[in-house]
């Protein structure tokens, strides 16, 4: 479980996050949603320590990440897997070397043991015969899956996914969403997904936090999100014409 308590973050005097408190539950896919520029990526980067918060606390179970020293932070980060928006695979390494990288850096496993673990993780994300390929030879969806394999190779306790569906077609996006959800339940980890994709929200969002202009606008489940009465959230959820028509259909107000 990850608990964020009253965090504030500003850049050059401009407040980006203001008094955000939220709990991300273990064994669930927790979604942070919001418009572009609302502060959700900054929030995620603050939680994992890529940005320092101005004020507030972030607890990974009972450990306050903000007050940890450099070495303890490094140790805690080894319990975190992260899927970046652009996959962030190392260009100069093959798929196998990319997934193997954390094992090479932090374990004393033999090459055969590492290769076996890599193959398990690649199989788990439904990739085969790609071990010797370089990231430049993979499609967007395959890159994401390799990045997920790398994120889970050390059995993390926490998984963070920043815009996992960006740049993917709807069908591939669905595959990635399902994979994240399955891994969360299978490994019983705390997963936090940053997205503005409403399909993802309805597909895997067991807990949803809506960020609006740097503040927490709403918090609830995907079942509750359609009937909140929150104007900003409704603007976001029903932003597309397609969603507006569905809403009109379900409420009986359709005129066309």
């Amino acid at each position: 479980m990850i608990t964020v308590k009253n965090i504030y973050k500003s850049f050059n005097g401009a407040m980006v996050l203001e008094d955000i408190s939220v709990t991300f539950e273990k064994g669930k896919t927790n979604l942070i949603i919001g418009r572009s520029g609302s502060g959700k990526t900054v929030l995620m980067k603050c939680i994992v320590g890529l940005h320092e918060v101005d004020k507030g606390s972030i607890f990974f179970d009972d450990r306050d990440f903000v007050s940890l020293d450099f070495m303890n932070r490094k140790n805690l980060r080894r319990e975190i897997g992260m899927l970046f928006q652009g996959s962030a695979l190392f260009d100069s390494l093959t798929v196998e070397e990319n997934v193997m990288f954390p094992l090479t850096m932090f374990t004393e496993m033999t090459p055969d043991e590492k290769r076996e673990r890599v193959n398990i993780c690649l199989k788990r994300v439904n990739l085969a015969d790609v071990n010797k390929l370089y990231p430049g030879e993979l499609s967007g969806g395959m890159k994401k899956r390799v990045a997920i394999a790398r994120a889970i190779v050390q059995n993390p306790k926490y998984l963070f996914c920043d815009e996992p569906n960006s740049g993917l077609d709807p069908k591939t996006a669905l595959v990635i969403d399902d994979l994240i959800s399955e891994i969360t339940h299978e490994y019983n980890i705390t997963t936090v997904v940053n997205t503005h994709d409403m399909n993802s929200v309805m597909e895997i969002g067991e807990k949803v936090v809506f960020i609006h202009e740097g503040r927490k606008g709403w918090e609830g489940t995907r079942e509750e999100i359609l009937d909140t009465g929150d104007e900003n959230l409704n603007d976001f959820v029903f932003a597309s014409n397609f969603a507006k028509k569905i809403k009109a259909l379900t409420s009986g107000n359709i005129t066309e």
Partner: protein
Amino acid sequence: MKFFALFGRYIILLSRVFSKPEKSRIYLRQIIKEIEILGLNSIGIVILISIFIGAVITLQTRYNLESSWIPLYLIGLTARDTILLEFSSTMVGLILAGKVGSNIASEIGHMRITEQIDALEMMGINSASYLIFPKIIAAMLFNPFLTLISMGVGIFGGWLAAVVTGALSSADYIYGIQYLFVPFYITYALVKTVVYAFIITSVSAFYGYYVQGGALEVGRASTRGVVYSSILILLADLVITQLMLA
């Protein structure tokens, strides 16, 4: 004020670069890899430039010493000292600042904007140390060899030009390059090379590491890395010369 902020940031980065590595064995492997990328791959350009510059120095010296009072072997001596004292260390340093410096800044800058550096940090790896330390050590270890190669090839280029154009005889040139030879000049050149290697790699890596934005900014960082490395090389040349030769 901006200069001090920049310098402070550079020092902080260096303190991270030289902190204890996660796994020494991995760093050793990285150093060998960087020796190939930064060092071995530069041999070609160093040989090409050195042979031409050696030839040009010889021909220009011959052109400027058109006097029957001056013995011709002094042309060999002048070419040798120019190559040993300045060309093979400083000129090659400036050339490597362009080739290696831009390579380092753009590689690390690209890793920054594609979040590969964030990915390293998230794994609990000291990204500054993992990426920059092997480059600095590889260049400091291998660049002296490049300088020695440049010295040999430059002097050979001078001999080739002398013989082919008939500017002076082979015997005069060979006598000249042996005449009043000061071995300390080689030590002086190698000390400069090691300092330049540190400047080129650390300054270029600094500009690449703190890139913000996209491809355009990576290009700018690469240019800045080369320009500031070159300026610092010239400044270091002045200081080391004063300390070691004055």
